[in-house]
């Protein structure tokens, strides 16, 4: 049974049809990367999974259970299992690093504050930010904010992690650090959906790669095939252009 199964989902921003007939299943422990040009619906797909964009039609199953995105208790249930790291980090500007990481586990999940604090310190140390606990988001670089956002998502103990363009603001050294963290998570069996323009990263970490264009899934394939022998012309054009630009 797939951990996530999306059947013919469609979603709109007002009248703009951003996700068209999406069909995708993700097994537990899989790392699925979403690639495609800007505006192709990759981030919208992640937002749909956590209910920030409500699908207008189609079904989404989580661990075999059908999700009703218009039902608050279903929404709460999926958000307990899925954590998202946003492209713009979305750290709470009024809270320091430690509070950003620990607020949801303590106030929302009602976990023991001492235990949460220990986990937050461990995670922040893991992402190299133990000396920034008292700093506020506007005192951190983009890369540092991104790592806080990753620690914040992990502190929720999710089963599934959605990463939206997490390497876009990082310098090459930090990309390696973040990749190492993600590899570690993968080894621990964390299911991940990753939106990225970093093709070498996608190729290296993904179990499968999904190519999207104009709100639709054009091709799903393993990394080797999608970069070397894509089935679809649009995938070939996109991959060819990206690799040529590199």
């Amino acid at each position: 049974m797939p951990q996530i199964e999306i059947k013919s989902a469609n979603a709109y921003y007002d009248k703009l049809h951003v996700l068209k007939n999406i069909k995708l299943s993700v097994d537990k422990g899989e790392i699925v990367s979403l690639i495609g040009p800007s505006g192709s619906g990759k981030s919208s797909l992640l937002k749909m999974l956590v209910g920030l964009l409500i699908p207008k039609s189609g079904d989404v199953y989580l661990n075999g259970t059908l999700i009703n995105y218009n039902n608050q208790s279903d929404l709460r249930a999926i958000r307990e299992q899925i954590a998202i790291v946003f492209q713009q980090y979305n750290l709470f500007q009024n809270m320091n690093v430690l509070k950003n990481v620990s607020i949801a586990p303590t106030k929302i999940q009602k976990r023991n504050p001492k235990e949460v604090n220990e986990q937050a310190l461990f995670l922040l140390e893991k992402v190299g930010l133990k000396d920034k606990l008292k700093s506020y988001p506007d005192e951190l670089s983009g890369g540092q904010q991104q790592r806080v956002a990753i620690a914040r998502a992990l502190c929720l103990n999710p089963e599934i992690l959605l990463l939206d363009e997490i390497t876009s603001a990082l310098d090459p050294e930090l990309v390696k650090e973040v990749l190492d963290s993600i590899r570690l998570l993968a080894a621990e069996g964390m299911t991940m959906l990753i939106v990225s323009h970093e093709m070498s990263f996608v190729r290296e970490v993904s179990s499968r790669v999904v190519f999207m264009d104009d709100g639709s899934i054009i091709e799903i394939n393993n990394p080797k095939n999608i970069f070397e022998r894509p089935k679809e012309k649009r995938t070939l054009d996109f991959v060819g252009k990206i690799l040529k630009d590199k």
Partner: protein
Amino acid sequence: MERLIEEIPNFFTIWNVIFLAKAMGVTFLLTAIGCIVGFSVGGLLAIFRKTKTILLLPIRIFIVLYTEIFRRIPFLVSLLLFFYVFQIIKISDDLFLIATITVCVIATAYIGEIIRSGIESINQTQWDAAAAMNFTYYQTLKEIIFPQAWKVILPPAFGFFIMFIKDTALASQIGVMELTFAAKVLNNKGFSPLLSFGTILILYFILSFPLDRFGKYMEKKLASNRN
């Protein structure tokens, strides 16, 4: 000038001082009740206006109409309107009550709008992050939005409060014995306008200055963007 100096001992008699103190109390009460009710009810209106559930749609429509209408009507017109409506339907002929209700209605519309714009000044990304972590609407407001929005809300809110102290002078038009009316009475009794209105000018300053300082203190305390 000599006449003015001669008038001073007669002006500051115990009777006149008590009369002015009572009038100052009325101005203070009108302002304080208006600001407290305006801030509380206006805050609630702003919070309801931002909700999305379909069940609250009629309330949202009412809030929009209420805010947009009462922000566009001059204070004096609202005051006279309430004054005559109260007379026609014979609810009460207490002038202070009529002035207080008008002040609360106007303050709620204005402050509600100030708070709404403060809430909306916070980037949608903050709401998204909170929603994705299962924060409820009210938890998001309390923990994330208001702590960031105070710096947008407080300066215009306190500016409005201070302006409001001055606007309560219009209550004199329906006969409420507040500071401006008291000055008119003293002037009519033969005291020079310079002395009568000069005195209430100082009294208005005494009322508004601490409020201005309190506003600055609250801005520093709440709006520093740091918990």
